[in-house]
């Protein structure tokens, strides 16, 4: 029997590179020649990056004040004492005075920080109704079960916005006053309360329900505010663009934090004379102290921070880069030693052979 190349058997497999597992391939062998430069280069790059980050982070100034009101820590302790054990706590004001010896480089951002606050608790995190928040009328009347026990009010009305997150909305408020001259009057520094939420949140994710007769209040008719709220959701702000579900404070709060310690943006300072930052002088922050945190050993802080290209002050990232970069170079040297040592040996072995 002769079998020419043409007369293939019916069952003969195809002789292609793929079927025969002979695909052209590159078998990367990380030799010393590649690995060492790689490590040195990476190390250098990281160190450079780290230095940059470190310095830009150092260039950022941050001013922080804990206004929790633990006894003996300023005038907020009064409010803290007052609010003890009452819900809703009575309205109480306190203030934080500080002075800037020089210009606080702008743009300046005002944050509040809460600690030991478990926004990432599962029960807390799921206790919201995104459908309701996206403005679906049906969901407005019939909040999701996850919202329980803040699904319906005691009167049986659907709660809008429902759920524990909304219910626990951070309701301290701050106003910044600047004293240009010593003993001069305090001038209120305009806080820009818009643009603090993610654009997508504010524009897409959170929508008010369709207006009824042009009125948001009518749209929310038949719903109850969350139990902790002193006023309904459509009265969160007087600004019609910043009220209801699209109130930016609310939106920011609804974006839950990943960790028990978190900061949330409260306002930006960028208007008027304060575009370049806070000029030197004395300042007072009036704090409306509403939010109780001492029951769970939490802290409330106020933070003024400037930002750079890399965001807020974050020395850790730069240091981390510096460490990693140096380690890379160190490893590179170790490898160099190892290679020199054992390469010789191998060569000798080969010579012997």
């Amino acid at each position: 029997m002769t079998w020419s190349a043409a007369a293939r058997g019916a069952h003969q497999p195809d002789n292609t590179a793929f079927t025969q597992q002979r695909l052209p391939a590159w078998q990367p062998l990380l030799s010393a020649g590649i690995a060492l430069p790689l490590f040195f280069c990476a190390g250098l790059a990281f160190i450079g990056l780290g230095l940059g980050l470190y310095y830009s982070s150092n260039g950022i100034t941050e001013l922080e004040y804990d206004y929790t009101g633990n006894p003996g820590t300023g005038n907020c302790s009064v409010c803290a004492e007052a609010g003890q054990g009452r819900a809703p706590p009575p309205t109480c004001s306190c203030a934080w005075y500080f002075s800037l010896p020089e210009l606080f480089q702008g743009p300046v951002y005002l944050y509040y920080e809460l600690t030991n606050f478990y926004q990432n608790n599962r029960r807390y995190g799921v206790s919201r109704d995104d459908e309701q928040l996206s403005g679906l009328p049906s969901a407005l009347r019939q909040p999701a079960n996850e919202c329980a026990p803040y699904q319906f009010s005691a009167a049986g009305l659907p709660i809008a916005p429902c759920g524990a997150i909304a219910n626990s909305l951070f309701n301290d408020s701050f106003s910044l006053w600047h004293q240009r001259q010593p003993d001069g009057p305090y001038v209120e520094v305009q806080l820009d309360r818009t643009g603090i939420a993610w654009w997508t949140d504010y524009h897409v994710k959170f929508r008010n329900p369709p207006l009824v007769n042009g009125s948001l209040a009518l749209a929310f008719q038949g719903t109850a505010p969350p139990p902790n709220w002193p006023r309904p959701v459509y009265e969160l702000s007087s600004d019609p663009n910043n009220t209801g579900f699209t109130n930016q404070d609310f939106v920011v709060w609804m974006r839950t934090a990943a960790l028990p310690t978190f900061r949330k943006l409260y306002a930006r300072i960028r208007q008027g004379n304060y575009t370049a930052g806070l000029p030197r002088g004395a300042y007072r922050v009036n704090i409306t102290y509403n939010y109780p945190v001492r029951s769970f050993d939490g802290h409330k802080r106020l933070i003024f921070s400037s930002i750079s290209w890399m965001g807020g002050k974050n020395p850790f990232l730069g240091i981390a880069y510096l460490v990693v970069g140096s380690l890379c170079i160190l490893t590179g040297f170790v490898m160099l030693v190892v290679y020199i040592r054992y390469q010789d040996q191998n060569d000798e072995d080969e010579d012997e052979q």
Partner: protein
Amino acid sequence: MGDTPGRGGAQRRRPHNPGRSEKYELRPEGPTGMGSLAYREDLEEEEKNSGFTWEVKANSRAYNNQFKEKGFLCWQRRKYKTNVIHTAKYNVFSFVPLNLYEQFRQVSNLYFLLIIVLQSIPEISTLPWFTLFVPLVCLLVIRATRELVDDIGRHRSDRIINNRPCQILVGRSFQWRKWKHLCVGDVVCLRRDSIVPADLLLLASTEPSSLCYVETADIDGETNLKFRQAPMITHRELTSVRNMASFQGKVVCEEPNSRMHHFVGCLEWTGKKYPLDSGNILLRGCKIRNTDTCYGLVIYAGFDTKIMKNCGTTHLKRTKIDHMMNRLVVLIFLSLIVISAGLTLGFWYKAKELKGKHHYLPTNDMPSVAAESFLIFWGFLILLSVIVPMAMFIIAEFIYLGNSIFINWDVQMYYEPHDTPAKARSTSLNDQLGQVEYIFSDKTGTLTQNIMTFKKCCINGVIYGPDEERKTPHKENPYLWNTFANGKSFFHNAGLLQAVRGNQDAMVREFWRLLAVCHTVMVQDKNSERPDQLVYQAASPDEEALVTAARNFGYVFLARTQDSITVLELGEERKYQVLAMMDFNSVRKRMSVLVRNPEGSIYLYTKGADTVIFERLHVTGEVEWTTEEALASFAEQTLRTLCLAYKEVDEDAYQEWRQRHQEASILLQNRAHALHQVYEEMEQNLQLLGATAIEDRLQDGVPETIQCLKQGNIKVWVLTGDKQETAVNIGFACRLLSEDMLILEEKEIIRILEAYWESNNNLLGGEQCLKNAFLPQVKMAMVINGEFLDQLLLSLRKEPRALVHSVNTDVEEPWQEPGEQRTDFLQARRLSLMWRTLGMPLRSTGLAPQAKTARARESPEVRRERAFVDLASRCQAVICCRATPKQKALIVALVKKYQHVVTLAIGDGANDVNMIKTADIGVGLAGKEGMQAVQNSDFVLAQFCFLQRLLLVHGRWSYLRVCKFLRYFIYKTLASMMVQVWFAFYSGFSAQPLYEGWFLALFNLLYTTLPVLYIGLFEQDVSAERSLELPELYIAGQKDEFFNYGVILQAIAHGMATSLVNFFMTLWICQDSGGPVISGDYQSFAVVVALSSLLSITVEVILIIKYWTVLFVLAIVLSFCFYVVMTALTQNFWSFQMSPKTFSFLYADRNVLSQPPILLVILLNVSLNTLPVLAFRLIHRALKKPRPKEEVEAPSEEIITVEPMPYLRRESRTRRSSYAFSHREGYADLITQGTSLRKTPGVNSDMLADQKIPSDEELSLSIKESPWFSRKMSFLGRKRRQHRGKVSSEDTQPATTMSSSFTADVQSSSYLDNQVSLTRNVAPSTNWKPRSFQENLPIKQERSLSYGQWPYSHPKSLTLTRKRPLSLQEMPPSPRESQLSLSESQPTPLGQLSLESQPAPLEEKKAFWSVSRSSWKIWPFWQKELKSPKEGTAPLPNETHPTLVETTPPSTGESSTDEQPMEVAPLPLEGQLVPSESQVPPDLGGQLPLPHKEQ
């Protein structure tokens, strides 16, 4: 030939002789101790079915249908199945429920189902519903699809089989129907070449005597024809279709069972009963050959047929890694429970705080913290369930499938001549192919092609080999002058051709004449297409090769009748009258034909084993000498040899002999023995013609493959049903055995095991003992046979029988011949040799500390089995001959059980099915025919040599791939999923998931699947060529180097590290940061960690893959694309609008990734995960570099540099007889009784029939034979005991003698053994006598007898043999007596006179020398000694000495009294015989007296 016992069609012709089948039946059915092997089931089945409860009435469906079987509850169904076969699992309606049921029987699937159910409880639903649901559905669908495809294939093949046509008797005529219409009781008509549709009782055929030839290739892979015969009564009565139609016989037989070669039943017809046995049965799957038409009655149909019963249920084979994977999953699951419990505990403590103080948290209606914790526990379990890698199972499925397809696709495993590609039938065993340590191979059809070719011959001392092709490019077919020449022959030898055509040399003439006359070949009916071409039908391929060779050289066998053979000799047609045919059998090892030639003179032509023929030669001269040399060279080339001899017989002598032959052949009892004696008398004083050498063609590349596999540390064992000679011959041909190996045979094994046993002494350390016992330098091989194995392993279970049982229980064993004794002698010699080698270590370890009592509690049989397996596994090669399928499986199971290794069985016939099923991997060879093995195998190859590629390339790759895949998968899962655990510490243990639900769901399905799949499908560390060049690389798989608990731990640690880095780096950075928009929110954090994980994992996969192709780049790119696309899909506004809750991560990625610092965070995470690992690997490799080199070299060194001990060299052994002849008994009878020949007058068959038909009361042949059989058995037993007495009194008796084996007298006893076996060897043509002595004293008598007898002219020996039957049946006369009488009565022939009557004078030594040479067959060794005195290094003389001693006694035997010490005579003789040995070390003398002392 797979000559399994129990295939006894032929034997039924001789009712007096229990065929193997009957014997098989009486024998215990294999060992029962291996509970796991399901042998017990077989036994039970047999017991259950022992009654004859199966009744089938011909042509009466109504009758047959009345039999009901109790089915489910009170529903009854027909007892007899129809011939429809359903192997498919499902039908249209049952597919979905059944398949789902099947799938959910798997624990992992059930687990996921449970989790999904739990998930639907909102209280504990920590993950969105789709996270687990989507992957599970994918898994189920993929598996179901695969099942569906498989099942459709099965449906299709079922349909094809069920719709095959056959002719069924309907009413009064045969009509074409389909197989599925066939019912029990139907009469079927089968034509030539049709396949038997069910198990049939052969009723009649168009052949004489209703013979029917079948080819059982589909059943046992053997291509030679077997014959079946109809019962005489139906043969006579059912001569027409009308008779058939009115046939009302009833067959009563056993229930359907799986014993292929066994059938007992009877036919009841017209009030009489006729016995039936397996010789009357045509099995489903056979092919009718050479028979025009035959008729059969369906007895078993469909699933009741033997072959279907034999298919059995294939138990699911699982690989080592599979097991490990499952264990791993269980482990993971357990650790998940532990982790969940731990986290729940954390929740418990945290909950009090959270509940009391954290007012903002939603209060729930849970009454207590405990209840809440309970829910949280489940919540965590669900959350962490993603760590149980469900996707791993899906992907693994794909990987296995892919690797199987690559096997199917491999062009280099495609066998063009048969158009057969390799095929992986089982798609779940690929990785195991990379871990095989033992290969169990069948021989026939697997190692060999089962093609015999006439390769060389030696005529009258002249060797004719094939002409060199290059030297004489044959211009034309040299056989053109001969019209009958078979063009296919490749044996050309111009010189020989000339000699033949010259017709001058009588020897040449007789040589070819013998080949043309002495055989059992039959000429097939004239082929209609080529009338001038003869087609031979031979029972054995050897014979066919010989007869064809003769035909090519002008001696054309034309035809045969019952008593004549027509041969065309160089154009002249001669008709020989056949006076007697003395059939071949395994004990006689020869066959002879007594013919009267046209001139009227009578000739005896004999062909047979060299050992047998040379003992029967008339003279030994130069020709014999050169023939011996030729045989030696043939043996070296591993050709199968046969010696040819002839003699002219006087008319008177013939007449006298004929009478005795007649008497013997009508003996009612013991006929076989009597005939044997008569034959023996005739076959004396032969004249040697020459020798033939037939090549049992190995398959291509078999030796190379075996060599290569050996280098890969794979042990190859040959398990064959064939005879020992053939198997050993092939062993040498495949280079499994080599001349410098120490071949352990049964006795040695027993001895070693006894020693092991002894030293073991119920304590332990036995293994160590064995280990030490074998110096690594000694290459060993083991040759055993199935019977021996049975005994060895049964012996301790079924106590008393064990050691009494003879080692070699052939049917006619008592008449063992000198050849056997010679082997004994050899064995004994080697044994002694071995004892010296092993004695010391054994002794030293015998007293080894009795530590390690762990195994001491094992039962004795377990220890014995373990000892045997330990011993066998230390051998370089193991050959097991005459193994039944069950025994083959037993061996495989034994090795599996005690060595805990991966075993592979390869075979091509049905007799290998059991072993193929038992082994971890079964490979079936797709031969030309025979699908049984293939259908039960896991892999199908066309050639044995493809095994090399299958294992070393595909197996290794698969193993590597699967291991790498698993390692990486574990890493990947942990690296990505452990983050959830870390997150729990920061989320108040509230089981908050960190990742987005969609990321979790798609992570394993899409984002990381392709690279993983790539690893599993395409990864190669070295190329295929390199894998084959360096078989040593394979060892890593055997040692589980790529995937073991160490690797798993490493992967776990690595994964943990990655997850820790990802989580905490992100955490620290975020904690510290305030940005324009907060990056510390949950979604951003989740995205950053997820992306870090994904990238770290991907970089890791890039680093570990060693084989980068376009596909890999594509896989990586596609994975990223998937991520991008799916993220875009799940995070866009439309999805959000659709279901804000399901797609809550609206634009999260977009927002997060648009911030450069976050990119920096991710970069930091990834580099922190990658660089240290990379550095570690590089440094590790640099440090390790020198080591792998050593490792690679080490094993090969061991293999190659092992220097054989000098005394184990070939020189120290006698020439290996390469005789091998695959022939089965019975054909001569068939011919002489004329059953198979057309010209036969009916008388003969009638006589036969009379003989056959038993009285009515008797139900079966076995019953009829039982008295005879029991007699024979007792005789056998007696013989065995005697035999044992000799052998085992010294070597095999346990405790008593063996304990002494550590002292000096062991050696002496082994010497003694030498002597004993020597005498056995010396006694030539007496069959039984040497066996009968029990004490050492008669040695000399024996010896003298043998020498006296050797040259006798036959009339004298006749007187001797005549006495023998008496002595056999009564009690054996004292050997001494018989010997004395003999030596007195013998007239002393010329040359040997001196030998007999007086001590050999030195001048006579040459004559003696030649005598001893020819009768002992050990001369080549001596001769070599003589030729190369310089080789007489110390060990050599040492070894030769016993032999020398043994040779000498004859010279003294005659004159001496019994008491004369043996070693008196040898000394002077030796000095002169071997002058070069004058420098024999003095320790010779020291050793000599030992046997003496013993006496």
